[in-house]
Structures are given as C-alpha cells and as structure tokens.
C-alpha cells in the first residue's frame, strides 16, 4: 500500500493525539488535583480515533454503518432523557427505523431522497402515527420533540456520511473521505481547542444563561487555532483553494460552538449534566457530537455548492 496524503493526514492525527496524551500525562503527574477525568477523556479519544481510522481504512460502507450506529446511539440517548408518552412507544419505534432507511439513501448515493426523507416524509408521518393512539394530551409536545431529535441525531449527522459518497476530483484525490476527515478532525479539534483556551485564559462569559463555562477567550482562541489548522490541512485532503479553506476554517469552529451551546440549552432545560455515560470522561455520545450536528450539514452544503 502506498501512503497517500490522506493516509499521512490520519498518521498526523495519531501524532497530535500522542503529543496531547504526553502533555496530559505530564500535567496529571505534576498536578496534585484530581485529573482522572482528563486522563479518562484522553483514553476515550484513543478509542474513538481508532474506530474512525479502522472505518476509514476498511471501506466507505463500514464508515456509513459507523455513522448509522452513532445516529442510533444519539437518538436513543435523546429519547431516554426527554419526557415521552407511553402511547408513543410505537412512534419512537418508527423514528428509530428511519435510521437504516436514511443511511441507505447515503449508501445508494440517492441525494434527492436523502435530502427530503426526514424533513418531509418522516415529518409528515410521525404526527400521523402518533394521532392513531387518539391521545391528544401532550400531542404537540410529543411530535415536536420527536421530530427535533430525528433532525438533530439522524438527519444532521447523516450529512457527514454523505460526504463519503462525493467522488474524487482532479483537485482532490482523496475524494469524499478526505472531506469527511477534514470535517471530523476540525470539528473535534475545535471542541478541544475552545475548551483548552477557555480553561487557560477564560474570563469574559459568552453566554452564561446557557453555558456558564463558555468564554469569549475560549471561543476566539478556538476559532483562530482551528482556522490555522484548516489552512494547513485543506491542501492535503480537500479541493479547497485558500479562500474556501479560510471560509471553512471559520464556518466549522463557529457552527461547532453553536451546536455545542444548543445541546447545552437542551440539557439545561431537562436539568441534566451529561446526555449519557457512554464515553468515559466525555459523558454521552450527544455530548461528543453536539458540534457535529451543526457543522456536518453546513459544511456539506458549503462543499456541495462550490465543488459538486
């Protein structure tokens, strides 16, 4: 196997993780505070990067299945933490079934259906399925919350998988896989960067009513770091020229921040700290992909508009 720039980029991500782990190890040795959560969090990153690397290297189909599973876990987490009605058990079941169908459109490269299946067909079908129980108490809240969950956990996330289907072009030999790698890496890196800048220099609160730990320093530090990283990595795995790389380098950190605080608002409303406990040190899976729910569709349409 010859190493392409795509493979080198993945190797680079492992390098970044190794350096970050070394720093975390050094800090946890030096500090007398309890650093177990940070250590756990770093360990979880190794597992997540390993899963993605394996999926990327094996095949597109495996990667699509991995995203379908992520959507399933996220939707299950969402349904487990929101108020639901007993009469809607069957409706929840239909909502889960939308996952394999939606990801089949991805696998099938059927863009037209991919784009409308959830926002049109499931949107119309779920309230119908719900009214069959003839229980109108809480009907509006039920269909509203179910549809929002389906949009957030399935429709949004499936855009990341659809990037995989985009073919290689003359300017970008790694094709869709390269774009997906770019999106995932920058989205997740931006989360860490915003957190780290905030921890180190955070002073001025940015949106205390929703997320009291988020600061302007963290947000702007993250945007600048991610922006620079976008300029460096774009020539390796994307067809972007300098202008588009710069635009993506702003779009991803800003959208990621908004996705993050949107899920924070949801958690605040429900009175929970984490969406779950699936990923040690991180919380639930929704805590991990909250920014991706916003960056995936926006980055996808950005790319599609300019290049496909």
């Amino acid at each position, binding site marked *: 196997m010859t190493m392409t720039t795509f493979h080198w980029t993945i190797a680079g991500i492992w390098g970044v993780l190794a350096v970050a782990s070394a720093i975390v190890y050094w800090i946890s040795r030096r500090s007398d505070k309890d650093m177990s959560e940070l250590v756990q969090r770093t360990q979880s990153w190794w597992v997540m990067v390993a899963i993605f690397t394996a999926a990327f290297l094996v095949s597109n189909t495996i990667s699509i299945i991995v995203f379908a599973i992520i959507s399933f876990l996220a939707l299950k*987490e969402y349904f487990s933490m929101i108020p*639901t*009605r007993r009469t809607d058990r069957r409706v929840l079941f239909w909502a889960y079934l939308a996952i394999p169908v939606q990801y089949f459109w991805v696998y099938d490269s059927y863009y037209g259906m991919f784009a409308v299946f959830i926002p049109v067909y499931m949107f119309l079908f779920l309230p119908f399925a719900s009214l069959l129980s003839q229980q109108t108490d809480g009907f509006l809240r039920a269909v509203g919350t179910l549809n929002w969950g389906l949009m957030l956990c399935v429709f949004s996330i499936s855009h990341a998988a659809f990037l995989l289907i985009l073919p290689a072009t003359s300017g970008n030999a790694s094709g869709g896989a390269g774009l997906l790698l770019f999106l995932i890496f920058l989205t997740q890196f931006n989360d860490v960067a915003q957190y780290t800048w905030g921890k180190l220099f955070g002073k001025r609160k940015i949106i205390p009513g929703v997320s009291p730990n988020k600061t302007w320093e963290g947000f702007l530090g993250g945007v600048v770091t991610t922006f620079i990283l976008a300029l460096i990595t774009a020539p390796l795995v994307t067809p972007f020229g300098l202008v588009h790389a710069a635009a993506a380098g702003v779009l991803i950190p800003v959208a990621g921040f908004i996705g993050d605080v949107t899920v924070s608002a949801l958690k605040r409303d429900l009175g929970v700290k984490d969406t779950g406990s699936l990923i040690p040190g991180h919380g639930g899976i929704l805590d991990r992909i909250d920014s991706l729910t916003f960056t995936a569709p926006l980055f996808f349409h950005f790319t599609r508009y300019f290049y496909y």
Partner: protein
Amino acid sequence: MLQKVFYVFVKTGVLFLLGLNVRRKELLPAKGPAIIVANHNSHLDTMVLMALMPLSKLKDIKPVAAADYFFSSPLKAWISEHVLGIIPVERQRKDKTADPLEGCYDALGEGKVLILFPEGSRGQPEEMTDLKKGVSFLAERFPEAPVVPVFTHGLGKALPKGSFLLVPFFCDIFVGEPVTWEGDRTQFMSRLKDSFNTLSTEKIFAPWE
C-alpha cells in the same frame, strides 16, 4: 451450555439495543448464598440482571418466578428450567402443607444466588408497588446471605407488560448496599423498602406518562 449461548445473545442485545448505566456494580454478590432483590417492570428485568453476571457464574444464579406463568405449558416449563434456570414459586397456594419457598431454601442451601422480585408482579411499568414479605423468610433462614437491593429504571419503558415491541432506551441500574438480617422480619422489610426509596431517587428520570 444452552444457557451460555442464550446469554451471549442477550448480552449483545442488552449492550446494543438498550445500553446500561450501572452504578456500583461491585456490590453485586460474587458468590452465594446471596439474594438479589429487584423492582419488577418487564420481562427484561431477569435477563438484564443475569446479563450483568459473567457467563461462567450463570449456572449458580437462579431467578425466582411465578409457577403459574413460567411453567404453564410444557414448552415454557422446559425453557424456564433449562435456559433461564428459574425456580418456580406458587403464587396461589393450593397445597397448604407445602412451603412455597422450599425451592428457594434448597437453592440457597446449595450456595446459589437468587434473583427475587418482591413486588410479585410486573404491574404498571415504572411504578413500584408494595413488597411481598417472602424475602424476609429467606433472610431469616439464611442470615449470613447478603440481600442486595437493585433498582432498575427504563426496562419497563423498553418492554412493558403486555407489549411485544421492544423500543430501545438507555436503562439505569442502581445497586445498593446489602441489607443484613437483624432478627426481625417487619423491620427487615422496612429497611429494604427504605433502601429502594433511596436508590430510586438517586437520579431524576425523564417523565413517562
């Protein structure tokens, strides 16, 4: 063997379709004689509690269940006995001379771990009813056996009584400190009840009405 194969599937299903968040798993008894008492919402309860145990231990873990339900037909009886390892208990006693808990005493005497649902029935999903006092007789006869309360939430949402459609939900399992026998049945039951009350308020659950 059959039981192990069955529970490999159950463990996979539980892991993927449900997903469990277990608090203080280390308090589950590692060896018998011991009694696990849990609230009862769903057919999934027994299987999930069994799935928490290592495969090699399964043969020593015995769910206690209603004879009138699980042994009502020859096929059910065979599955209940050989795959699930159930100890039957008569809920409506016909023969007044036989002790309905005889099978439980025998199993504890052999050093098994019993799984007991003192509510006696699954009842309304995610609602706890009064505890039947049978467990206090067992504790009295085997005072050295720890009685470990386990509160589960979510299994009744995933598969409530009367439904065959499994809808995935993450489920919470709270294992409590063992309740020890101190010589009085009423007092034992009230301490067990208190323990369940504490466990069930450990987390705020999403409303489900």
